[in-house]
């Protein structure tokens, strides 16, 4: 480049020496070759929780009932002591209700997640890249810290450059966050539906089968939601509950039908096998339906 020293022109660039070392540039991020594992709690925890919670509920119920009858019975004899007990009991009940309501609020988060989800096609047309980035960030802030969605988002932010415009940012968001998350979620749904199918296949009676399907369905919801970065226990949503109930109903109707068929065929082993495999296919298919519905809910609207 030519010298710039003695020009008759005024310089529009002011230069000052600074007393710092230039920063070293990092190499760009590498694409992960191994698939990212979705973080899951240790196995059995949920069952333990269920046992624990129902145990606690029983204890609470029984003791609550006992306590109330106790207070009622003894109020006449010692009014002060029973009043104090009643107040303590009241405080306890109120606080436990607040805790429970907290969980319920968690259920409503899915709706909020969906509500806050930015419409990507609109963002792409936004003139301000800052606004686009802000909207995506607001959405991504809801991703749980170890979720797959969060990892994808982190990788995406590493690729951003100062002169990317909104359309490019959105295209990259689709390519590096939305699309991989969707692929991952599909994998989860497929795996869970296989599980659902095989459980239906091996389950000996309808009660167990139904319970198992409820369990797998809940698990599907939980795992899919987690891929999308929703925190555990926030995956509740009315629409999903309805689908879940429908699935159970569909499964029982299916059971009836297959029962009828097996009656006709008389209770041979082959018939039992056929019944179970038909139910397995149905259970798997219904679970896919559940998973896909959740994915549709969590993805951008088309």
């Amino acid at each position, binding site marked *: 480049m030519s010298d710039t020293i003695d020009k008759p022109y005024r310089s529009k*660039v002011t230069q000052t020496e*600074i007393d710092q070392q230039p920063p070293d540039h990092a190499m760009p991020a590498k694409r992960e070759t191994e698939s990212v594992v979705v973080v899951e709690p240790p196995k059995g925890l949920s069952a333990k929780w269920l046992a624990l919670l129902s145990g606690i509920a029983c204890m609470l119920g029984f003791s609550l009932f006992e306590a109330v009858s106790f207070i009622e019975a003894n109020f006449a004899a010692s009014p002060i002591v029973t009043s104090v007990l009643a107040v303590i009991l009241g405080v306890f009940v109120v606080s436990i209700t607040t805790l429970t309501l907290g969980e319920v609020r968690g259920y409503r988060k899915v709706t909020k997640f969906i509500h806050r989800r930015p419409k990507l096609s609109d963002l792409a047309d936004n003139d301000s890249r800052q606004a686009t980035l802000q909207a995506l960030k607001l959405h991504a802030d809801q991703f749980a810290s170890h979720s797959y969605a969060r990892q994808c988002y982190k990788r995406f932010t590493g690729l951003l450059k100062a002169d990317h415009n909104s359309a490019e940012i959105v295209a990259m968001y689709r390519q590096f966050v939305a699309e991989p998350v969707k692929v991952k979620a599909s994998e989860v749904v497929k795996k869970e539906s296989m599980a659902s199918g095989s459980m239906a296949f091996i389950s000996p009676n309808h009660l167990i089968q139904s319970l198992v399907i409820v369990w797998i369905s809940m698990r599907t919801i939980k795992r899919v939601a987690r891929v999308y970065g929703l925190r555990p226990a926030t995956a509740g949503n009315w629409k999903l509950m309805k689908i879940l109930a429908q699935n159970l109903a569909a499964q029982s109707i299916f059971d009836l039908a297959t029962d009828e068929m097996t009656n006709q065929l008389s209770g041979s082993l082959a018939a039992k096998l056929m019944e179970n495999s038909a139910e397995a296919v149905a259970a798997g298919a219904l679970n896919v339906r559940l998973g896909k519905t959740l994915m549709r809910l969590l993805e951008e609207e088309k």
Partner: protein
Amino acid sequence: MRKLLNSVMNPVRRASDAGSAQFAQWFMQSTHRFTITGLSRSGKSMLFTSLMTILKYRSEQHYQCLPLLRYLPMDLVDKLWIEPLGDLPEFPVESHLSALENGQWPPATESVAGFQLIVRLRQTNQLKKYLLPFTDVVFEFIDYPGEWLTDLPMLDKTYTQWSDSAWAQQMNEPQSQFAKPWHSAVNDFDFEQPPTPDNIQLLVKAYRDYLLAAKAEGISMLQPGSFLIPGSGFDWLEYGFTPLPSRISSDQSSPWTQRFTHHYGVFQKQWLAGLKQNTFRETDKQIILIDLFEGLNHSKSHLYQLRETLSNLSQTFVYGNPGWMQRHLLKQRKIAKVAFVATKSDLLPASEHHNLLALLKDVTRGATAQLSDNEVQFEHFLVSAIQATDAGSNAQALRYVNPQGRYIEATFEPLPDSLKAMPADEHYPALPAGVPKDHLARMLNGNGLDRLLQYLLEE
């Protein structure tokens, strides 16, 4: 680094060489013939070097470079390698890289070089999704001195036409400042003397001195630029010529006009015709690199002069436009595309990039006006082959290491978004940023190449 390069540079035999029909190749390979052209010092060699390095690291080590390049998704690239391109000498990527390693910019290009880069795609089901019916994408690159490019329009002119237009151009600002010694040499010259080799040498030397001085001062319209490059295959000592004042050039009976007309014809036949045929071959994707910082560094009139040069060159940009044969018979319905690229965008803070882009559009206005008549698509881009600068303390500032090794913060006043808006008495000194030590990471972090390639590759 070195080992990696050796592995790229070792040509792998292409399946087609093993005798399989040319026919199969049409279906198996998607050839994208890229020609990267640009005036001298516009950043061609650096861009090639960077592009090869980036594609290599992206495909072999899965560095997430070029995120906007959706056409060649990382998952689908199996491998890539370099092959020689026809009879052209190999592009000296290795020596360019070792220059960078030693903290030096690649040396100025003094001859033509070329290579092809072949990207083999993986055969997966996913491939079908992208509807790529072929396995290889072939890029052809040719690098040559920018001075040759500016000579090509001389092919379509007679000596007198060229002489008159060259003479007129020298009368304009800013060239006229540097042309004074040359003009007085011509005025003092006695054209009644016969055009002996010695006399011709005298004139050619004076003219060449002017060209060299003008080049050093950032002038791009330098004809014949081939006289300035030692590697050019034209003997300007034997067949030299210069423009002459029209009182002489219009006099067909003047022995000087006759002699120079003859030499000009030799120049066209022996040098330019072959150059156009061998170097500026048919191509459907043209990248035209433009260094706006050179003009901004000097003055407003330099930018006008650049616009004029590009306008004169625009016909050469469509030489490559694939003919009817290729488009219709071979069913390669590719649209010819031209990308105007302002290089070295890292020398300006990101907050001023939109102004640089606007300025680029204005500077190429004359050229694009002619392209629109030729069914050629065009678009404008900003690119940096290497991110040699760092962010500054505010949005209008950036930092760089100067040749003395000092770390400097430069604060920019807003750039004009058109030539008209550029003040006549102000300039933007070009920052003499050195090659950073972490040049590899900074090449991979370069800016805008993905956007450019995506535009050129998508159908």
